[in-house]
């Protein structure tokens, strides 16, 4: 279809460029801030052109926040969430779609409901559980009298404890505990043609073999899409790591570290705000997920659209 619309084309570019300016200006200003010296960044007319201090500031911000260890931690947690989520989503959806058992719908709905309440909304009690992840079982055993029974029979006091505070497990598990991805996989499994399953069974494949040799190779695009989304999601977590990790030196994540760099009376002691360091750190922290989104754009868009939040 060919149409000549020179005026509208110019208008289109103008509108788009205007939109881009709005989107890019804050980050550009942050970038410029990261390239200035302490005096320049605090001088009144706002600077629009970068200075030459970028590397110096980056190095100082990096050392100040001890980013080496924190990047490693964030990478471990993000990878853990990605792998955990994909594995869980895949096997759960597989069991729900391909097995016949009573209560299938019940289990489906039980998992489905977890989509409704994001971690932020139930943050206080989730934190309490993380302090001892076995509390639920302890409480149930106390209520049902199993603890008493064990105590009476063997003389052992039942006191289950598994503290997840300040650990990678504690950072990862609650982030994995929703149904995001399970539905992406379910949708995909529902599109598998009957003939494929019949053929696999005819060839003598059991369920696990079918999953491993047929379904997983077919779901590579799913895996890529889900991995992109989950990596960005895990990397950018803030509230949860802020609470679970008190031992920042060993288990701190990069995004949480930003809250320490907010230049207010607390961090500068009433001195000149160190905007140049705060902005340099912000840039460093933003970069990995942005790189992932740009490089994996196709998968990212697919994942975003198909994943129920």
């Amino acid at each position: 279809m060919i149409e000549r619309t020179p005026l509208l084309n110019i208008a289109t570019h103008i509108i788009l460029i205007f939109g881009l300016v709005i989107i890019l200006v804050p980050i550009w200003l942050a970038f410029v801030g990261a390239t200035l010296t302490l005096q320049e960044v605090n001088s009144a007319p706002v600077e629009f052109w970068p200075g030459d201090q970028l590397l110096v500031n980056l190095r100082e911000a990096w050392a100040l926040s001890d980013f080496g260890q924190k990047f490693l931690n964030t990478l471990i947690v993000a990878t853990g969430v990605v792998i955990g989520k994909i594995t869980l989503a895949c096997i759960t959806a597989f069991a729900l779609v391909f097995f016949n058992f009573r209560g299938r719908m019940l289990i489906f709905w039980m998992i489905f409901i977890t989509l409704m309440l994001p971690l932020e909304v139930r943050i206080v009690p989730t934190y309490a559980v993380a302090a001892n992840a076995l509390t639920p079982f302890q409480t149930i055993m106390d209520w049902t009298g199993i603890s008493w029974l064990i105590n009476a029979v063997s003389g052992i006091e039942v006191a289950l404890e598994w503290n997840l505070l300040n650990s990678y497990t504690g950072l990862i598990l609650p982030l994995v505990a929703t149904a995001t991805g399970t539905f992406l996989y379910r949708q995909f499994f529902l599109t598998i043609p009957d003939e494929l399953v019949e053929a696999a069974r005819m060839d003598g494949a059991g369920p696990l073999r079918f999953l491993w040799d047929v379904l997983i190779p077919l779901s590579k695009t799913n895996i890529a899409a889900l991995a992109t989304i989950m990596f960005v999601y895990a990397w950018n977590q803030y509230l949860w790591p802020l609470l679970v990790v008190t031992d920042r030196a060993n288990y701190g994540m990069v995004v949480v570290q930003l809250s320490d760099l907010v230049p207010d009376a607390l961090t500068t002691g009433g001195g000149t705000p160190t905007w140049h360091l705060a902005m340099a750190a912000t840039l460093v922290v933003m970069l990995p997920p942005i790189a992932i989104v740009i490089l994996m754009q196709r998968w990212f868009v697919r994942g975003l659209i198909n994943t129920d939040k």
Partner: protein
Amino acid sequence: MRRAYFKFSWIAAALLAPQLLIIFVFFYWPSAQALYWAFTLEQPWGGGNTWVGFDNFRKVLSDPYYWGSVRVSVIYALATTVLAMGMALTLAIFVDRQLAGYKAYRVAIIWPYAVAAPAVGLAFQFVFNPGAGIFSYINTIAPGWWDLSKYPWQAVTAIVIAGAWKQVAYSFVFFLAALQSIPRSLTEAAAMDGARPLRRMIDLQLPLLTPTFFFLLVINITDSFTDSFGIVDTLTGGGPFRATDLMVYKIYADGFRGFDYSGAAAQSIILMLLVMALTFVQFRYVERRVHYT
């Protein structure tokens, strides 16, 4: 659901167990715990919790600070949603014309999705800071006119702009995908009938976007209730004078700084009901209308 192929066996149980265990410990138990706390009060000197019925809710609902928090949360939700969706829709419609460079435009609009909320908050705090930000010009003319840490309305404006900025990419992706799934035959038929591009935008594309529009409306509002913590914490810290004390932020502050678990739990329950109602609306009324082709 489809016909199942395999009989239930220990394999299926083993495949389901991890997910069920995790959601039991980290989802159902905490949610039940929140309910328990919301209806009980912890004794100050130990001795467990006592049942207090709706007292915690009554206390929360008669607290003017809580209503202040609800008010600013609603303002934040509506303002960010309108700004972000308006901008996303405009950009998506024009990007969809696929002129030269449209891929570059697309990437440039999508990437802010990847920026962590606290990073957005911090960057905007720099942009808006009274000493050397973009408003420092005004401050050189009228000293002290712009100061986020003093004037509530300025702080609210700042978190709204930062929040909207962060949300644009998400809506944009959905609008663009919806626009691109409009069948070519429709566009061509309209063109044959003499509809120019602008006419087609108004009479063809916008009406066909309605389902996506409603879907995004609900999602954006829900997100603004739950996702705002990082921005508020780094940009304003809930102040000045609690002007930006959004609901999630208040739950955090009351629960972890004030150690008022019962109050925080009652607030959590109210927020949970709100989010569930929105999600219910989304699944019940919105999603079904998304498939229009």
